[in-house]
């Protein structure tokens, strides 16, 4: 029992460790700095979005529109390059993402539409806007060489993007575990009634959670568009599921109230490592999906069925 609880607590780390260990033994050439740095870089796009979604899921809400916001922000950042220059355009792209989040927040918090339904709707809306802005054609940026630089690997370890991801995880970790607003976030997701009774505004926190999630999707989308020198209306269409999977594998609970930055890091890295290792072995994509799906289900199953000695007295309702 003790052992199971230990397993339960560190399950993300254990699964990541196992993935790496097995890959190291079975996959020739897996253990190398290049693999590490590129695997990290690959995880960081999903990772940046996952950071935002971790926060939102902890607050007890969900956002299905992150993939569309990802595309839309990137398009805005590319589109405005000729007019504003590269960096200002990038900033406006991220702001556009945040604005999408504010709209999600409005629907969910003010109009009380269930977040699953609200963001399903905005997923369509934002994607439409992306198509409308680009006339459904990918749009090229002004400076392809900048993109090439952005993809560069420093010290054999980091790209700009993966460094940013790691740094953001660190900030998220400090924020969630050390700051007052971070702890209040957990309170709101876990028991909004008790949080309100203690003078915390659950609505305000949920609203900000939506803005943050979309802003992070915006950051990831802008970086992706800069790296590819392309703003495309089809970017990120497969992303939402991957992000939710990474966050949940990382131990964040979709019903709210539980989650961590390091868990999300673990989830993102596990999936990146797993994918990279299987691609190294030329494992077909559909087999990769089976493995990823199994890990997701098994971890959640484990979470449900191993009882810690908890006795929850306040009923926390599903998803919202």
């Amino acid at each position, binding site marked *: 029992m003790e052992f199971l609880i230990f397993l339960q607590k560190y399950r993300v780390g254990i699964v990541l460790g196992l993935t790496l260990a097995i890959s190291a033994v079975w996959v020739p050439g897996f253990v190398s700095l290049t693999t590490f740095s590129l695997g990290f870089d690959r995880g960081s796009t999903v990772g940046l979005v996952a950071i935002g979604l971790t926060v939102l899921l902890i607050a007890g809400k969900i956002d299905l529109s992150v993939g569309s916001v990802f595309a839309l922000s990137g398009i805005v950042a590319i589109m405005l390059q000729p007019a504003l220059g590269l960096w200002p355009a990038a900033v406006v792209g991220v702001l556009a993402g945040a604005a999408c989040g504010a709209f999600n927040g409005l629907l969910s918090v003010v109009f009380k539409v269930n977040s699953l339904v609200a963001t399903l709707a905005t997923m369509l809306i934002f994607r439409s806007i992306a198509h409308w802005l680009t006339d459904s054609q990918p749009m090229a940026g002004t400076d392809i060489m900048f993109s090439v630089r952005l993809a560069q690997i420093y010290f054999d370890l980091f790209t700009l993007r993966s460094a940013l991801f790691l740094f953001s995880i660190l900030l998220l970790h*400090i924020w969630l575990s*050390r*700051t*007052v*607003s971070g*702890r*209040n976030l*957990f*309170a709101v*997701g*876990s*028991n909004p*009634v*008790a*949080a*309100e*009774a*203690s*003078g*915390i505004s659950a609505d305000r926190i949920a609203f900000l959670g939506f803005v943050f999630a979309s802003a992070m999707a915006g950051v990831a989308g802008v970086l992706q568009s800069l790296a590819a020198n392309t703003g495309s209306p089809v970017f990120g269409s497969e992303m939402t599921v991957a992000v939710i999977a990474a966050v949940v594998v990382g131990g964040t609970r979709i019903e709210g*109230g*539980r989650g961590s930055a390091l868990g999300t890091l673990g989830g993102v890295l596990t999936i990146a490592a797993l994918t990279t290792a299987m691609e190294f072995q030329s494992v077909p994509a559909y087999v990769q999906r089976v493995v990823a799906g199994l890990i997701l289900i098994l971890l959640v199953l484990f979470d449900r069925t191993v009882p*810690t*000695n*908890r*006795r*929850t*007295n*306040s009923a*926390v309702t599903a998803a919202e």
Partner: protein
Amino acid sequence: MTAAVCALRMTGITKTFPGVKALSDVNFSVDYGRVHAIVGENGAGKSTLMKILGGVHLPTSGTTEINGVEVRLRKPADAQRHGVRMVHQEVNLVPDLTVAENIYLGRMPRRSMFVDKAAMVRDTAAVLTEIGASIDPAARVGDLTISQQQLVEIAKAYSADPRIIVLDEPTSSLSDHETAALLRILRRMKDAGIAIIYISHRLKEVLEIADDVTILRDGAMIETRPADGITPAKMIQLMVGRDVTNIFPKIASTIGAPVLRATGLGDGATFHDISFEVRAGEILGLTGLVGAGRTEVARAIFGLAPLPFGTLEIGGTEVRIASPAAAIRAGIAYVPEDRKGDGIIPEMVVRENVSLPVLQGMSRLGRISMKADRALARRYARELSIMPSDPERKVSLLSGGNQQKAVIAKWLSANPAVLILDEPTRGVDVGAKAEIHRIIGELVAGGMAVVMISSEMPEVMGVCDRVIVMRDGRASPPIDRADLTEELIMAHATGEDTVDLIA
């Protein structure tokens, strides 16, 4: 010791809920540095009065003054700003945060934007030691037992440096040792000049700690007097204050053979070694203080919770009940205590609620016979005089009492041999109460065996043929109607010496 201004003065407080007048024209005041107890039967309005003070409910009319200034308390934060801290009857904590974080929720100590964790844990440890609770400040609250959570609630209120602190049945789930520690800390708070409002059904405790006592009955303030010189017997008399048998007329019925026999029931946690039998035509009362374990027993018998120990016999044959469906087949029905949570399906109309347990029986090849469905609903709407009598009304639009009748109708439709009613009149007004008692009386007159769980003494006294009293998960031997006195029940419920009480 009387301060110049009152800590709290509530004047002319009236509160009506849909269908219930919970408080009428209550005047209530508390001084700094005194422990003021509120006593009264279940449903007397104690919690409602305190929720008005805590900003949870707005009064229908009346004013509240704190420290001599009139205040409007619209939300909990308003009350907290005025130095009011509540320990509510129901625990309301964040299960996923630690003990320390819960205690300081909404006011965590910070260093710039960071939580000063060290300070928070240190202070929490200090507060917990002070109130005599040995709980790890870093433990997750969801992992604590109910009584530990109760202590965390108390610590939370206490640590906020309140001017007025309200404790609504803080000891209902505490052990004797924890209770003693709590009373010690209350004395210290009192000496520090805090105004303390203390609600409890444990009268001995009340007398031990209180300076003043206010008695509420049926939403009205009966009397406030110093605790000196009042006896438990006097308090009970003031609380009950009426001729019990007049309000709850007993319908005569002939008592037949045992229908349900329980032997040595236990779930290994909340109740142990419960044995009783209930006979046709009989109402067996199951009473005790809140949290004594009665609901758990009923749920286990009905197959809603596991029942690892003991045996059940129906009409002399042993039955194993693993699910409510099995219980229905065995002839047992259960009207749960939490009407909103476990009783009604709010989106459904009365008809659909009523026929739920017997749907399969009125279906052919899966298709529900609407004729049978309607007939059943009409019949019970008439027999239980559910108002409005239209069975096509959404049940959530009915008053509490009529919702309760609908829930009872639901279980009568299953035509059980044994009906277990858990707090069947909780939250319903006096008229509906009398109706429900009449219905129960007619049922037993028709030969049904009824187990009625109730915390309301007059109800138990008025309606039951025999009564068993539970305390801390164990049951007293049955008391026959002829021997029933409130004092005796109270004595069993609180575990206090009968002689003491009567004295």
